């Protein structure tokens, strides 16, 4: 994770591979279109790029508004040391969400349209505006790091004066569209599985975003600690852990209450694909972390805190994917799994996030207090430092929870397989077992026979019988009446004129050509009955 050209590390190699695959997929996406590059379809129009890149990307950046509210609005100064990396994460997160949208939109060059073409009834319209405005706010909140680096005093002073209004605006915008991402799904009550559809979706998305924002701040502080040897404010992070517990607990209570009130709580325990995914999500992302973080010893422990934060993050990524993908599969009638192109683009965007974060830390004063660190904390390699911690006490709990997650994950994977098999089975229900088609056709009176008079040099008159020309199993009047005998044609209708020769390929000869049916040239008496 340290970017120096002299020593190409393992992570640099991984980054190069991911970037290569992602760029290749980018070329495919923009030269061959969405159909060729994604597993999306008419039945499943939103996939990984919306479910992960946008829904999770925005939520994972929620630390920005949570922490800036804590520091600037509630004036809790203790958290100031970790605000800059959090703002940076949020800013990068939003920029990358916009990048991901450029991949997902069918017409990415029109991404600015919501600016001038308004539809205030659309949740998407609101999300678009909030993301645009909040990205601007984040850019302004982030810019002091750049100005400080460039030693530009005047813009710094202006921004400093603007801080509080900016933060208030940021919090309002974040609240609006964190919840709006949930509101997006309010309009599909009959499509989204009842374990995830709720009138409270916006509230759930907002509260979980707060929990997630805190967990991401903890998570990224640990990464910074390992990658940049930054001091770890364990007491601050433990307090954030407490906030996480409160947010998670509120979320859990509301969620369970809502499920109970809508009478679908029991469906969580059904051995279905959705039930297992719901249990896995709730155990891993909510109940597990609440248990772990409530214990002071685990919360104050490096390993315990880190694992808890990771669980929250994973659990909520799972939640967003469940809302956007798992919960929508059954009603769509198809099974969606992202294509490798979608996966590699997503991986590339995540990798770019890490890379930009690293670059920013290297060149900008993201951790301004780093220089003031006492030297001894830097001596021990961080990996060893983590291992040395007294985390023995947390081991059993982590193992038990890990076991639960493993079992539920295996279970959901297994039932997921069964589910997919069911999905791919040919749809037979209701069609084959129904009464024969004749019932529908009973009312249908076949048009009367048409007798064409005997022409000159003709062996006899021709009587056309509709009944003998009809496939009673799969009637298709338009085979004849759309083109040759244009009765059922929207434009230029007209019955054939008996005065004309009907042998040609525009009339009887079209099918009586020797291939589809016997040829008009074969046996005249087949039709001409003297």
């Amino acid at each position, binding site marked *: 994770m340290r970017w120096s050209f002299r020593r190409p590390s393992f992570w640099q190699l991984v980054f190069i591979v991911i970037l290569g695959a992602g760029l290749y997929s980018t070329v495919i996406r923009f030269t061959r*279109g*969405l*159909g060729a590059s994604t597993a*999306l*379809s*008419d*039945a499943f*129009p*939103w996939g990984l790029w919306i479910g992960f890149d946008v829904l999770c990307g925005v939520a994972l950046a929620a630390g920005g508004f*949570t922490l800036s509210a*804590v520091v*600037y609005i*509630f*004036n809790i*100064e*203790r*958290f100031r040391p970790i605000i800059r990396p959090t703002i940076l994460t949020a800013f990068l997160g939003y920029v990358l969400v916009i990048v991901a949208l450029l991949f997902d*939109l*069918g*017409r990415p060059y*029109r*991404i600015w*349209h*919501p600016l001038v*073409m*308004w*539809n205030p*009834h*659309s949740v*998407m319209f609101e999300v678009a505006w909030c993301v645009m405005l909040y990205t601007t706010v984040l850019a302004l909140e982030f810019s002091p790091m750049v100005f400080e680096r460039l030693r530009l005093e005047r813009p710094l002073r202006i921004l400093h004066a603007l801080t*509080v209004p900016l933060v*208030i605006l940021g919090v*309002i915008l974040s*609240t*609006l569209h964190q919840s709006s991402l949930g*509101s*997006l799904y*309010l*309009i599909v*009550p009959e*499509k989204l599985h009842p374990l995830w559809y709720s009138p409270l979706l*916006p509230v759930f998305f907002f509260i979980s975003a707060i929990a997630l924002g805190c967990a991401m701040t903890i998570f990224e502080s640990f990464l910074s600690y390992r990658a940049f040897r930054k001091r770890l404010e364990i007491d601050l992070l433990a307090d954030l852990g407490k*906030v996480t517990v409160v947010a998670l607990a509120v979320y859990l209570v509301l969620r369970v209450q809502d499920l109970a009130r809508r009478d679908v709580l029991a469906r969580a325990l059904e051995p279905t694909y959705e039930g297992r995914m719901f249990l896995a999500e709730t155990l891993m992302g909510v109940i597990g972390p609440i248990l772990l973080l409530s214990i002071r010893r685990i919360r104050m422990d490096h390993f315990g805190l880190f694992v808890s934060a990771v669980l929250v993050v994973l659990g909520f990524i799972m939640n967003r994917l469940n809302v956007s993908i798992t919960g929508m599969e059954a009603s769509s009638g198809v099974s969606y799994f992202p294509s490798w192109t979608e996966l590699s683009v997503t991986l590339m965007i995540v990798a770019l996030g890490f890379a930009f974060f690293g670059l920013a830390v290297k060149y900008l004063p993201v951790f301004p207090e780093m220089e003031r660190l006492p030297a001894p904390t830097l001596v021990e390699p961080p990996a060893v430092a983590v291992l040395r911690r007294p985390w023995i006490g947390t081991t059993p709990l982590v193992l038990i929870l890990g076991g639960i997650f493993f079992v539920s994950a295996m279970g959901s994977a297994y039932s997921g397989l069964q589910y997919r098999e069911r999905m791919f089975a040919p749809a037979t229900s*209701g*069609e084959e077992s*129904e009464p024969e*088609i004749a*019932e*529908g056709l009973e009312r*249908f009176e076949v048009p009367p026979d048409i007798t064409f008079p005997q022409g000159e040099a003709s062996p006899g008159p021709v009587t056309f019988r509709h009944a003998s020309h009809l496939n009673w199993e*799969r*009637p*298709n009047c*338009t085979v004849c*009446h*759309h083109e040759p005998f244009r*009765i*059922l044609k*929207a*434009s230029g209708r007209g019955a054939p004129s008996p005065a004309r020769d009907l042998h040609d390929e525009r009339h009887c000869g079209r099918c009586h050509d020797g291939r589809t049916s016997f040829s008009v040239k074969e046996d005249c008496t087949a039709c001409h009955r003297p």
Partner: protein
Amino acid sequence: MGGKKGLLFDVTLCIGCGACYEACKERNRLPRTVAHFLDDQLSDRTYTVVKKRGGRFIRQLCMHCEVPTCVSVCPVGALEKTATGPVIYHEARCIGCRYCMLACPFDIPKYEWGKVLPRVRKCDLCADRLAAGRPTACAEVCPTGATKFGDRQALIEEARARIRARPQKYVPRIYGLEEVGGTSVLLLSDVPFERLGYRTDLLSEPLPLLTWQVLQKIPDFVVVGSVLLGGIWWITNRRREVQIREREERKRRGASEEVSRDPSASGFVGPSQEEE
């Protein structure tokens, strides 16, 4: 002209001839997609299909809702409900977010997945023909009158009359009268609608109300939220200023007496961060 136009599709009259299917393809200049029309699916190249379900032939096409979900969800207003009934698509506005496809309760809008610059495709109730005072292509060619074009209100009256005339035959329900707030395409059947594959679990109120209930609170939220946050900031900031001033004052009064009374080493302890 006057009122809203619509279609009445009577399942009991349909003989599955496929004329509507072909007429739609012809009018919209769509390519041939399958050997037999009964095997076709709605797609970017097929705006209406005839299906054999429950021993009957049914039609699938855009229902042209009275309060269309697709129109409400489109962030750029690329879909529009016109005064005469059709829900039409403005290609030049569309950004390709596909929210209309996700949100449509009838799964009607389809996408040109094969194209680099795709469009949303669906039935537009032959809006241009309507403007010229003509019926839709599918209604014009229908040989049995199963698909009938007319004023929506008149069609509702006719549907009621048909049910009244033969109550033992028809399911006593006009599909599309109330579904998601009503549709311009109305259906009559002698077989329960769910057996024909039509969704019968739809709400009777327009779906856009579900999101509008939330969206309409935004202006209030912005105002109240800003004032509230500003107020909290003012209080906490004031408290901090007072604390700083008090500390300075104490310092000025003499270092000897305040050593043990200093609030805390880190200075300020604010309200708990759990408040939000």
